[in-house]
């Protein structure tokens, strides 16, 4: 497309005043020097004069005036789920079911473990960390008796303050042990 053709193509928008300022300048420069372009300008201006925007809109309005658009209330819009959402929803539902299933399995496993649970006893660093209740437990008595006694002796030697209840329990136990031995 040469310059003349390019400017001729701009003429309709120039006549309607919808050109950019830069293009208006180019068109006006060309119009000032080219009689052919001036003639084209006049011809195209006649088109817009014969087919005025206002007249066309008026005609369209008249024609559309008798159009009654009624949106029936009963034709309430459907709940539309886009196709892509259907796949996503299914995936989410599947994941939820899987998650619930896994959780149920885990909790039932935990319950089973609870039933069969074998009490484990963590060793305290010092003897006064054991409560009298723990010391009364058969499990504790059997499993850590030796350790308790060792710690008890070591705590007394190092001058640590011993829980009085614990001290009483151990003393009773040792007395009981020694009386048993005497009987024997």
């Amino acid at each position: 497309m040469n310059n003349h053709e390019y400017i001729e193509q701009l003429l309709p928008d120039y006549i309607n005043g919808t050109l950019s300022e830069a293009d208006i300048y180019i068109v006006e420069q060309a119009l000032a020097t080219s009689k052919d372009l001036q003639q084209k300008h006049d011809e195209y201006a006649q088109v817009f004069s014969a087919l005025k925007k206002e007249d066309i809109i008026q005609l369209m309005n008249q024609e559309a005036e008798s159009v009654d658009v009624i949106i029936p209330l009963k034709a309430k819009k459907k709940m539309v789920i886009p196709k892509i959402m259907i796949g996503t929803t299914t995936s989410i539902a599947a994941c939820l079911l899987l998650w619930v299933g896994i959780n149920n399995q885990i909790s039932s496993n935990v319950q089973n473990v609870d039933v069969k649970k074998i009490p484990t006893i963590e060793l305290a660093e010092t003897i006064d960390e054991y409560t009298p209740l723990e010391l009364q437990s058969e499990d504790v008595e059997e499993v850590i008796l030796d350790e308790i006694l060792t710690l008890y002796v070591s705590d007394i030697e190092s001058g640590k303050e011993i829980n009085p209840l614990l001290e009483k329990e151990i003393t009773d136990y040792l007395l009981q042990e020694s009386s048993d031995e005497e009987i024997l």
Partner: protein
Amino acid sequence: MKPEQDILYLLEKGKTHEAMSIMMSNYKRFVHSTAMRYLKDDDDAKDLTQEVFIKAYNSLDYFRGDSKIQTWLYAITRNLCLNALDKKKRKGNMIHLDTLEVFSNEKSDSLVNESEFTHFFKQCMSILPEKQRETFILRHVEELSYEEISEMLGTSIGGLKANYYQAVQKLSLYLSSKKEGNIQ
């Protein structure tokens, strides 16, 4: 606020009926005139206008405001028009010749009732191919930017500028011929 913003605001607030009411009062003319250009029959255009707004109402969930409402309505209208023309074409192949004669008589009667400008405008539009006609109306009457028209028609901006120029050029030649008395 512009109708476009009003509609979007109401849709956001969930006031669908109010939004539809503004949409119909502002774009009824646009939808009907577009339908008229495609279908060339007032009754069909009226029915289709109704259909367009019902479809728009039912498809509001799809509308996310990515494009302008006018662009969205144009796409719906164009699709429905092309479907209707396709149906008509298939049906038309089965219409008997006698029936066609009755239709043509009805058309000539209706032309008598048309105003001079209406007749002139329709003649002008009839000489333009679809793309040039649509570009001319959307640019000159609806005052849309080339970018907006490009979105509506799916044509490049360069192509649209050429279409618009060619439409004006053809109309100019048509007017000259009319003046010289070659066309009534």
